[in-house]
């Protein structure tokens, strides 16, 4: 119970500091933020912007005002020549695309990595084990954007098997949607497969030396049943944690992969915001991503202790 309160406190602290950092990003801009955000507009627009962003207020007041807007769903505006457009409008469309990409990649990675990890652990040191390990080591040295570019060019353009770019909504055509997401998801998943496989293999090898495995074997259970029913579950905890921690890798990767495959997700939004110097938008987008990431990690942590009572008590 105490532990839960402490964790909640830490979560609150982390959220506070993360939002503080992002909320003050605009203040970090060299020079007058209003000049930077609206370089070509007239002084009246800038005055309005200063008012809106509370640039003349002291920092704490500015943070409170920003936070108040943020939690009520007001993520600021895009400031273009003539139009100002709320950032929130775009986020609603973009966030699902990024989420889809990350979920597909994560599911794909686990679907491939779990069988590979189990099989290689069964014959640790064998040919397949060595081959899979060496391949995994090589895959880890391929940046996912390189893989994305290569796949998009060779599979998408040269072979023409899958669309090299573009996005199809799930509601428009499910098959086309999956086709448009296939190459991005594979690019993002490949590195994760290597990590997950090595991790699960290590834990499985350790678990397979436990007494209860010997017991299960002695009872005459089939090898298959021992592996999948008795050994996999206690071996999957580290995998679960790392899968959670790796959401950060996925987020970073997804941003770039989206740009390469021109998927209209958060990465593309951030990319556009950067190239158009929309700092207010950058601020909100980074805050949203960071908060999402923190919450996922907390969820993983809770799930983790729920799954394994030993650890729940031992970790204190």
């Amino acid at each position, binding site marked *: 119970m105490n532990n839960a309160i402490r964790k909640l406190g830490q979560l609150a602290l982390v959220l506070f500091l993360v939002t503080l950092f992002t909320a003050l990003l605009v203040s970090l801009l060299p020079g007058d933020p209003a000049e930077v955000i609206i370089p070509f507009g007239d002084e009246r627009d800038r005055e309005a912007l200063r008012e809106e962003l509370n640039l003349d207020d002291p920092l704490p007041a500015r943070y409170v005002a920003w936070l108040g807007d943020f939690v009520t769903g007001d993520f600021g505006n895009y400031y273009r020549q003539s139009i100002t457009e709320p950032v929130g409008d775009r986020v609603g469309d973009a966030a699902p695309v990024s989420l889809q990409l990350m979920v597909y990649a994560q599911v794909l990675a686990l679907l491939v990595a779990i069988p590979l990890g189990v099989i290689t652990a069964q014959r640790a040191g064998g040919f397949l084990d060595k081959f899979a390990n060496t391949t995994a080591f090589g895959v880890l040295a391929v940046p996912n954007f390189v893989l994305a570019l290569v796949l998009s060019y060779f599979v998408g353009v040269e072979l023409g098997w899958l669309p090299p770019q573009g996005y199809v909504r799930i509601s428009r055509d499910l098959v086309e949607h999956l086709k448009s997401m296939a190459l991005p998801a594979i690019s993002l998943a490949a590195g994760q497969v290597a990590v997950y496989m090595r991790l699960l293999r290590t834990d499985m090898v350790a678990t397979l030396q436990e007494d209860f495995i010997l017991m299960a074997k002695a009872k005459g259970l089939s090898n298959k049943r021992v592996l999948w029913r008795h050994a996999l579950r206690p071996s999957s905890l580290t995998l679960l944690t790392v899968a959670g921690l790796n959401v950060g890798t996925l987020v970073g990767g997804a941003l770039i992969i989206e740009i390469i495959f021109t998927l209209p997700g958060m990465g593309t939004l*951030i990319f556009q915001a950067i190239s158009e110097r929309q700092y207010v938008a950058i601020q909100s987008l980074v805050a949203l991503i960071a908060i999402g990431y923190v919450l996922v990690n907390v969820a993983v942590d809770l799930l983790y202790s729920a799954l394994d009572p030993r650890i729940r008590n031992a970790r204190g």
Partner: protein
Amino acid sequence: MPEVEPTAAILDVATPSGSIEPTGDTELAVARTKRLGVIGWLAIIWLVLVALMAAVPSLFPVPELTERFPDSLRNRDFGPTSGHPLGFDTSGRDLLSKLVHGTRASMIVSVLAVSFGLVIGGTLGLIAGYFRGRVDTIITNAFNVGLAIPQLVLALTLAAVFASDANAGYGQRVLVVTFAIGFASIPILGRITRANTLTWANREFVLASKTIGAKTPRILIREVLPNVAPAMFSIALLGIAVAIVVEGGLALLGVGIPADITSPSWGNLIATGRSQMLLGEAGQVMAASTMVFFTVLSLNYLGDVVRARFDVRESAL
């Protein structure tokens, strides 16, 4: 140290909070011998080559960066010819020359960034792990906040904010990218240093040193640091690999080292090669990607060897 970066995943593996210590047989098969082996030597030779390219590109018999070879343009054939083993880009420039000259910027950014992260993160980690208590709580929480933002997103944000001055010169932009990557790597480097410091800070020889009246800075530098150094070194190797990849990622996002004929980096060669790729010329992307691949592979391998050799306990977090 999460990320665009498949290699960053290695660092994630190194920090599963509350993981169960695996019993033996954990290291990668190829690195288990704890000796360098043939692959290890190949990795070192490759890195020396890369270092030479970065330090003295004039050693390598490649054409000047600005030189264009009109023959390739006339025939619209950018493939390899004699004297140009990698062929040309779509403006008729020698690709090998671009790779060699692009090494310096990539190396400067990644090595400096990790050094920066290591000096600051390492110092904080040492202090947190040695003094424990309240200092530790504060520093660890600060690291956790840093880790709460994916590394690429943090680097991207910093680079975007500090590069907002459109008139910034080349050197300034390189500095911004270096700082952004370095700052974003502080938390993970710091956390690993702290974890390793914790396991050394209460050993007998440290207590002995304390007993004979050594001052705290001396204990930290002469007793604790040398024991933590192998861990820091192995994580620095992995960190440099990650930084090389992040540099490429930032370039693709448009906030990397500015692309220019005379100032290539591997990252911006990949980024600018993208448009050539859409025209059907994948040469530049493939060439620069290959450099990144072998360099990252070498660094990862050597990092693993160092880790195995010094029995670094990365799961002691």
